[in-house]
């Protein structure tokens, strides 16, 4: 029974990682950059929803929508101001800029909301009690899993069926050829950031609901882990990000329960290294040699 409850907790945490990883992977797939500030957009999503619920007294669903709207705008602005000017710069320059944006967001949050942790009450309260109370599952855990599945299915449909989604895939493969087709590559990249950031807002709300606290550094560790999950599953791959996130969550939860809380992260990263040794492109990634 204990095992089952750890598993459920792992799946739920993994679903949060998966949502974050989906944002990472989409941006990487299309803009070919690692947006290390993604985790901090999550944190902003957390604060916006926190303020909306606690200071403005808005219902949680409105708070979530507001957080999504703010993060979408934030993502597009970050892309336009910080990354777009570096479109043809070496990827190292872009990476360093992304790290800079990440610290900028953390420090800005510290100035606005202070470094002290806030108590974040879950967007949905209560829990489901099963087997005469031997197994309790917080509703928010169930919600997280459902939301993650819906997002994953939605993104899959979007990229495989819609015109814009196909254009995104075309951009991800060959930006010049995409432009010859009449695709506005800059606008497509902005849209990708918008979608990724809206997902980050959802992830922020769910993550804070899961953890129960919120502070300016809330997003950074989950951000790195979700990045790990995206690489684990195969960076650029939507099902890969989903699978990677889920596995990382389960590994972390099991490691905490049966090995050691302190070693949980180490074990997660160790598994990643082993997977990458065996499959350099990740679980579901396609190995595409760099073109020269």
């Amino acid at each position, binding site marked *: 029974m204990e095992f089952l409850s750890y598993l459920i907790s792992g799946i739920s945490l993994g679903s949060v990682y998966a949502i974050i990883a989906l944002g990472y992977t989409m941006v990487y797939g299309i803009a070919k950059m690692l947006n290390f500030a993604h985790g901090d957009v999550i944190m902003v999503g957390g604060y916006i929803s926190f303020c909306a619920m606690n200071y403005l007294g808005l219902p949680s669903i409105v708070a979530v929508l507001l957080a999504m709207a703010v993060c979408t705008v934030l993502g597009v602005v970050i892309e336009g101001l910080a990354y777009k000017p570096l479109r043809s710069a070496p990827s190292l320059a872009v990476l360093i800029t992304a790290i800079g944006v990440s610290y900028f967001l953390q420090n800005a949050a510290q100035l606005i909301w202070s470094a002290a942790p806030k108590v974040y009450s879950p967007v949905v309260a209560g829990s489901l009690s099963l087997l005469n109370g031997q197994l309790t599952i917080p509703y928010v855990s169930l919600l997280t899993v459902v939301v993650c599945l819906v997002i994953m299915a939605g993104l899959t449909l979007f990229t495989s069926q819609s015109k814009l989604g196909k254009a995104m*895939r075309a951009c991800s493969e060959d930006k010049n050829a995409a432009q010859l087709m009449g695709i506005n590559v800059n606008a497509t990249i902005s849209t990708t950031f918008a979608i990724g950031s809206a997902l980050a807002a959802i992830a922020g709300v769910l993550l804070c609901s899961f953890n129960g606290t919120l502070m300016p550094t809330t997003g950074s560790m989950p951000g790195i882990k979700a990045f790990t999950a995206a690489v684990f599953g195969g960076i650029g791959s939507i099902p890969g990000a989903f699978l990677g996130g889920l596995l990382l969550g389960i590994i972390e939860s099991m490691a905490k329960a049966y090995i050691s809380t302190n070693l949980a992260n180490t074990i997660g990263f160790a598994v990643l290294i082993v997977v990458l040794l065996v499959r350099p492109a990740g679980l579901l990634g396609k190995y595409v040699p760099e073109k020269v």
Partner: protein
Amino acid sequence: MLKVNGINVYYGSIHAIKDVSFEVHQGEIVTLIGANGAGKSTTLQTISGLLHSRTGSIEFLGQNLMGVPAFKIVSRGLAQVPEGRRIFLQMTVEENLEMGAYTQPNTTIAPGLERVYEQFPRLKERRRQIAGTLSGGEQQMLAMGRALMSGPKLLMLDEPSMGLAPILVEQIFEIIRKLHQAGTTILLVEQNAQAALSIADRGYVLETGKIVTTGTGAELLASPAIKKAYLGG
């Protein structure tokens, strides 16, 4: 129809295109020939807006193309089949063709597909196949079909015969001739000067970024200097 006038294109400090001017008239097949590195692809990419000239002008159907972003060029009626095909390898054949019609209203996609499949029956058989698994010849057909999906008035082809067996080269040139007969104006870049000049109304010879000779296809084919430099004797 297309007027390129005194363009100069640089890659950093490399001066790749030097004062190049040429014209393509409605209904013509015009070819741009030259050795490796002469600047043929650079010229086409400049017309398509992927590269920029520091001087001069590019006019298409009386409208200025200089400074127009690359993604807005195709809707003006100017499509390019780039060097090395550059199809979307991880997308299906049909998805590639749909991308070719990206700027077109959705209602034109089905008839467009019909037309392309008629021209390239092989593509129809493979419509659901991932483009990366096509043979080289099929990939070239896909690249051409994709460009045709936008219903271009002028089609620019960059070395469509590259890496293809002689029989396929013949097929590709046959298709170009048919497209031309059907009313598409063609600007053809080739290293295969013999084949290109045989179907072209006029040709320009590019050497290290400069146009050195021009004439009708027949004139250039007969010219001793061209024979020596580009036709293997």
